[in-house]
């Protein structure tokens, strides 16, 4: 197994300080969005995908496992949250919880199945599992098939925050994103994260050192799937619907693309990638299927010439971990 990132830098106090500075800058920038005149819906959508991409990156960038089915967590959490909000009329915080629990349960099952095979087989298995779920959701009555669950009430978060106001919703989504991001950052820099990186770099050696690598990979899978589910639950409030698009394989492909563009195994890369891809879709929406062609071309160009991604290249240039 060749390493995904050719420059693994040690975690030094300076690196952590740099990363915290960039994080605070990012948080301030995002917090200022409602005052800037930028359409908040676009940024909220991008934030949901950024969280999804970060969760996905936890698995590939730090565990070396390429999941081609992460849309299944996004879609499952979305459907369950939407159902809880609309049919059970639960308040938003419980609606989100339902989605997260659903994604957690799903990641336990799919993780148990897919972690049995390595490398390229793992990707094919996750893809096949997500396709299985796609067909289940297509036929299950509660998802309303092709129509999806629409007109989801946004409600009041904790009985206080009125989510139907765009600015309030924006800050709730932002807090959710930042919390998820910090959690992932904490995981990456924990002893668990270090073992994960060791497994990515050289699995046989990690095994010989006494680590039960399968358990580490399984835990990484569950964490990644659950956090992806959190992104799916948040997205329900932004889009106010849950549909089959969110479970489709093309969505899984988009997540991969976002992370690849931003930089596999970088901390901030998935966020940059998600904003770039969502912005591209927004501006090129009038070009129909050419968007697919452009996305494919970005894949090809990234893999052939730009494997570190935007943030990876910057980090490599400055010899920092970002």
């Amino acid at each position, binding site marked *: 197994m060749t*390493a995904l990132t050719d420059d693994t830098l040690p975690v030094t106090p300076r690196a952590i300080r740099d990363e915290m500075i960039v994080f605070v800058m990012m948080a301030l920038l995002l917090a200022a969005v409602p005052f800037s005149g930028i359409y908040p819906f676009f940024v909220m959508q991008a934030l949901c995908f950024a969280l999804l991409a970060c969760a996905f990156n936890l698995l590939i960038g730090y565990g070396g496992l390429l999941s081609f089915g992460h849309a299944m967590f996004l879609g499952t959490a979305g459907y369950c949250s939407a159902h809880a909000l609309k049919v059970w009329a639960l308040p938003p915080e419980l609606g989100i919880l339902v989605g997260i629990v659903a994604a957690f349960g799903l990641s336990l099952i799919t993780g148990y199945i897919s972690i049995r095979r390595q490398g*390229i087989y793992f990707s*094919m298995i996750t893809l096949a599992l997500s396709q*299985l779920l796609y067909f289940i959701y297509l036929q299950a009555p509660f998802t309303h098939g092709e129509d999806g669950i629409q007109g989801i009430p946004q409600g009041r978060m904790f009985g206080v925050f009125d989510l139907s106001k765009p600015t309030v919703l924006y800050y709730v989504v932002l807090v959710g994103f930042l919390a998820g991001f910090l959690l992932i950052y904490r995981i990456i820099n924990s002893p668990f994260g270090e073992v994960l990186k060791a497994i990515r770099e050289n699995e046989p050696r990690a095994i010989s050192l006494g680590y039960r690598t399968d358990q580490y990979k399984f835990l990484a899978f569950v964490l990644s799937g659950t956090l992806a589910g959190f992104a799916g639950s948040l997205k329900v409030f932004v889009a106010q619907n849950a549909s089959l698009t969110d479970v489709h394989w093309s969505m899984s492909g988009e997540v991969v693309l976002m992370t690849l563009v931003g930089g596999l195994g970088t901390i901030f890369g998935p966020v940059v990638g998600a904003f770039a891809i969502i912005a591209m879709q927004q501006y090129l929406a009038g070009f129909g299927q050419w968007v697919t062609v452009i996305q494919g071309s970005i894949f*090809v160009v990234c*893999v052939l010439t730009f494997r570190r991604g935007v943030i990876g290249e910057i980090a490599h240039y400055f010899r920092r971990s970002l």
Partner: protein
Amino acid sequence: MQALYAQLLVGLINGSFYALLSLGLAVIFGMLNIINFAHGALYMMGAFVAYFLLSLGGINYWWALLIAPVIVGIFGMILERTMLQWLTGLDHLYGLLLTFGIALIVQGVFQNYFGSSGLPYAIPDQLKGGMNLGFMFLPIYRGWVVIFSLVVCIATWFLIEKTRLGAYLRAATENPTLVRAFGINVPRMITLTYGLGVGLAALAGVLSAPINQVRPLMGADLIIVVFAVVVIGGMGSIMGSIITGFALGVIEGLTKYFYPEASNTVVFVLMVLVLLVKPTGLTGRAA
């Protein structure tokens, strides 16, 4: 009973496509260490080439059966020379990502010009009509697809397992450096192998054109099922791919008869079961 036999036949036909596609995937994976995500898109191209040959050039089905795989095979070899070869030595997953990108490009371009609806392709005159076998009515074209695919699969198996060229190929899979030392042009063999695998996909596309309509996305969902087939069968053995492909097609056909709601998912469910019982796949070696 008629309906059961009819579904079995549909299953055998789908099985032929699974076998041809998973065979190509296995051959390509053996030599290039790449899972060819573009396989579905190239299968679709095969069907479209046949369609163009007929509608623009008036070239009939029989010639298309020969020409389409060659054209798509050449296209594949160009892809290999210009892009895939640069991935040698990198992690497997970059091959998957690159070919996924190629699949998006190819499918996107075709969707732009042909939308998502299907184009009809007529069954050739010689294969029109059907036979009454006593217990069922057999449309001749469908019988032809099954038999012809079987012949092609076995011919490929023979080529790889029993000929001198196949022996070089297998040797180069095991140890490319050593084979090069014997004066064999391994990079050229890799290119030809990719062309062969892709050609098989295009051939399946031509075969399917008169049955399923010619659509830009005809390969997109199929390739995911074929991935599941490959996971079930393992990519270690050529014969294993062929048998698994046909067997899963038949099982899918039976499901369509007994429990149609599950016909879309049965292959995936079987994959899960196989992974739980025998994680290395039915014929695969430990990864």
